[in-house]
């Protein structure tokens, strides 16, 4: 089991640690729903040391990435970030990733899922081998990664860094110092709130974590575990690999076509074009709301008027919306918002209704 640089900090904070994607990670420090509310109303701090972090450089880095993933890297300005997927030749999703073009335009940075990191690195290295000068460096152990998320994130973080955060746009990143340590910081996150992700040399991760907590304490900043992170990302309609997307789904049926640009020759493009020409796969990822007493969970069948139409991929109690929410793949004819469906718990139907994704948008966000 791998451990992040913050393992002992989590233990000292009373975290419950659980295995996640081969890492021993904090699932919660207190009640999960309270942690989710803290992020929506104040700010929360997350250890993301398990996420894979990869640098790509060399003359052919851009050409290699154009082949590797679905977004159009040539359209990413220096210091900007885009969401993308890695597909196989059949258009099946191998991972979803963020692609960062270095602020100095001297290469790229990728953040990949912990559970797929090993497979991704194999795919990335194999892709790079087809180019004369594309260098792949796994930085997962060399860098710590900490996220601060919530409406007070900028106020708290600005006290600790010389980077001008007011000028840092959503899905942009920059270099600066943090508590005097050289670091990189992006305005990104996985909660639907404003916030930042900070990348620091591994040896300084614990110090940065502790400085964050001490500095944000008067504002109500709390450490937040993976349990609340999952609830928050689901409320914000953000996919999680192994749930909404996996090697059995493609980006079109998952509603992630905005992360796919048919302007370049990426692995899986031809397959997606064939699927598009055929009018899709006949199913769609949708959001469901339910006021049932029971919580919809991954794997529960979904039915329309007693006939199975799909299955739940993620489900949770939404503390922000005070209802239960879920994602499910259903037949296209049952995917329109307002459609009444049922999810089945041991064959017992519980009512649910199709709603648009995301479930939650923070106030003031377009």
């Amino acid at each position, binding site marked *: 089991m791998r451990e992040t640089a913050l393992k002992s900090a989590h233990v000292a904070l009373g975290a*419950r640690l659980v295995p996640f994607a081969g890492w021993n990670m904090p699932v*919660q420090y207190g009640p*999960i*729903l309270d942690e989710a509310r803290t992020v929506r109303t104040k700010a929360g701090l997350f250890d993301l040391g398990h996420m894979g972090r990869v640098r790509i450089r060399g003359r052919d880095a851009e050409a290699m990435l154009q082949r590797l993933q679905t977004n159009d890297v040539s359209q990413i300005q220096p210091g900007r970030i885009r969401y993308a997927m890695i597909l196989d030749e059949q258009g099946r999703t191998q991972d979803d990733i963020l692609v960062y073009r270095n602020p100095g335009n001297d290469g790229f940075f990728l953040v990949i899922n912990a559970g797929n990191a090993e497979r991704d690195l194999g795919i990335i290295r194999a892709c790079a081998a087809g180019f004369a000068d594309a260098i792949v460096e796994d930085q997962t152990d060399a860098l710590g990664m900490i996220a601060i998320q919530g409406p007070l994130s900028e106020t708290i973080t600005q006290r600790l860094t010389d980077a001008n955060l007011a000028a840092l746009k959503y899905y942009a990143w920059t270099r600066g110092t943090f508590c005097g340590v050289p670091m990189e910081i992006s305005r990104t996150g996985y909660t639907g709130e404003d916030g930042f992700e900070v990348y620091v040399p591994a040896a300084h991760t614990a110090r940065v974590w502790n400085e964050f907590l001490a500095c944000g304490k008067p504002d109500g900043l709390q450490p937040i575990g993976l349990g609340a992170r*999952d*609830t928050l990302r689901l409320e914000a309609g953000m996919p999680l690999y192994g749930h909404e997307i996996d090697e059995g789904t493609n980006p079109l049926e998952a509603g992630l076509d905005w992360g796919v640009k048919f302007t370049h020759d990426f692995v899986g493009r031809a397959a997606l074009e064939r699927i598009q020409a055929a009018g899709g796969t006949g199913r769609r990822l949708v959001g469901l709301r339910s006021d049932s*007493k029971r*919580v919809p*969970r991954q794997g529960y069948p979904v039915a329309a008027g007693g006939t199975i139409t799909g299955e739940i991929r993620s489900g949770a*109690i939404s503390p922000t919306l005070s209802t239960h929410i879920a994602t499910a793949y259903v037949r296209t004819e049952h995917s329109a918002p307002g459609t009444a469906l049922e999810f089945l718990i041991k064959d017992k139907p519980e009512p649910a209704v199709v709603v648009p994704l995301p479930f939650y948008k923070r106030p003031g966000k377009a």
Partner: protein
Amino acid sequence: MRPNDRKYLKSHEWCKIDGDVATLGITDFAVSQLSDLVFLDLPNKGSSVSADTSFGSIESVKAVSDIYSPVSGEVIEVNKALPDNLDWLSTDPFGQAWMLKVKVTGKSAGLMDAAAYEQNCADGH
């Protein structure tokens, strides 16, 4: 030490047998492992339960767990107030948070006394 007036299953249920009636519940260890409870599903009075077989389920924010019966028999009483007062499971798992009373016709072969159960929990099960 947990109460030694009752028996325990490895899956963290307890039963207290008085004559031919067993009172059933789950232990504080189970409650701490589940955390953030949101829903409890119990069988109806008059239904039957079987030793080592699931008789209900308990749901936390993140998971659903089956609850296994330490005994076989007919359910003669259900703690109807418990599903609406799940905090009792945290405050008084061995008392107020009892779940069922069962007229016993058989018992699980896996019942442990308090000391053996203590060891089971210490071993991290």
